């Protein structure tokens, strides 16, 4: 069953955001990696690149298909996770941990407001169970 950690915010395109001050760590959700199947290739934006909220910032490919990764927030890429590029299976094995994708310096904290709460994201993916339903 898909896990949806309480401390994160989510996009409708199935990315998660962990905010720490003016920096956001971004990855794709457990649900997303389940839908994709085994991830075998990842393309992520380079350090210094600028990503825009809701625009494609990278690609993950499973054996069967390629899928865009959309930036859930805008900002400058401070770091991309090179371990994911070397070992794309980390996205499946630990989507909220070692499978993180980029660290972004937030351009506009206001963009966090429309992101989904864990409860709203659970509803979005059709999970009714879980804490804090609204």
């Amino acid at each position, binding site marked *: 069953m898909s896990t949806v950690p309480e401390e994160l915010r989510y996009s409708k395109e199935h990315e998660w955001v962990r905010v720490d001050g003016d920096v956001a760590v971004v990855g794709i959700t457990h649900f997303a990696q389940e839908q994709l199947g*085994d991830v*075998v*290739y990842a393309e992520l934006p380079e350090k210094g690149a600028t990503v825009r909220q809701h625009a494609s910032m990278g690609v993950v*490919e*499973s*054996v069967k298909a390629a899928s865009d990764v959309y930036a859930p927030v805008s900002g400058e890429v401070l770091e991309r996770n090179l371990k994911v590029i070397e070992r794309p*299976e980390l996205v*499946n094995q630990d989507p909220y941990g070692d499978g993180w994708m980029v660290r972004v310096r937030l351009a506009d904290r206001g963009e966090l407001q429309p992101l989904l709460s864990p409860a709203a994201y659970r509803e979005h993916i059709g999970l009714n169970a879980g804490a804090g339903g609204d």
Partner: protein
Amino acid sequence: MSEAPLLRTALHAEHVALGAKLVPFAGWEMPIQYPAGILAEHRATRAAAGLFDLSHMGELRFRGGDALAALDRLVSSDIAGLAVGRARYGLLANERGTIVDDVIVYRLAADDLLMVVNASNVAKDRAHLASRLPAAVPLADESLATALVAVQGPRAAGIVAGIAEDGMAAILAALPTFGVVRARVAGIEVIAARTGYTGEDGFELFVAAAAGAPPLWRALLAAGAPAGLVPVGLGARDTLRLEARLALYGNDIDETTTPLEAGLGWTCKLDKDFCGRDAIAREKERGPARRLVGLVVEGGIARHGHAVVDGGVEVGRVTSGTYGPTVGANIALAYVPAARATIGTALAVRIRERDVPARVVRTPWYRRTV
């Protein structure tokens, strides 16, 4: 394409119980993967054994008359020379010398031949064959009544032989590649063939769909699980066959491609008469204009339909591409002009508007060692 409801194989309930992800394929609802996932299923097949439901495949049966001679004139390979208990891969071609289907013909008895055809081509092949067969050779389409269960991998033969009965264990274990024999496996009558589509040793078991397939499937799973056998869906079947450079009809070959372009000239016995022979012989004289080559792609996965480019100019198209789990590289098949088909040629594949370096390599990428 079609709005008709999807067909379900006799093993549909087994797939659901195993938690398979089911997808439409060639008019059938088929398992694309089980919970273990495509990579795990692929690796289990290479290391131990995989169990496949291939009941969507078509089975055409030709009995009596002079079926052997009649099929010899419709299949590219040497069917007339096929011994009883042996099978052969070949092509159905049209008069233009392009590929109608790729098939395996099994000679079950002197005047009893089984042709396995691609699921997407059953109706087309039936029409192609029926209009060219002599009236004395009836064609029976047994596709719906026949299930096909494959066991593939280094431990496959041991697993199948281990539950064979009536003293058939030794005969099955010793059956050569492309051999075929009737047997009882776990109490169920099967036609057991040493054929497959994974690059591994193994068996394909033809069985009565409703009565035979479910108990056979369960017996194979139970007997094979301790040896590492797992159910495998169409997703891993595709990565397995591509690493072994086995063509997929509809992707790599179709009615716009020729046997020589596809590297299947070896299946064409040009010193006999068969449908398409003259066109293929003429093409052989002048040499094919393009060839299906293997690529290794550095940085991205090539997919069916992607352009192959040389110096920024499109020169061909990818027909199949994936990450090869055993090869450990991104591999693809593509048609390129004959002049660019030499091993080592540097090309590129256009992936998401970027030209990603690719190199023409020797195939198959994977060849089993035992």
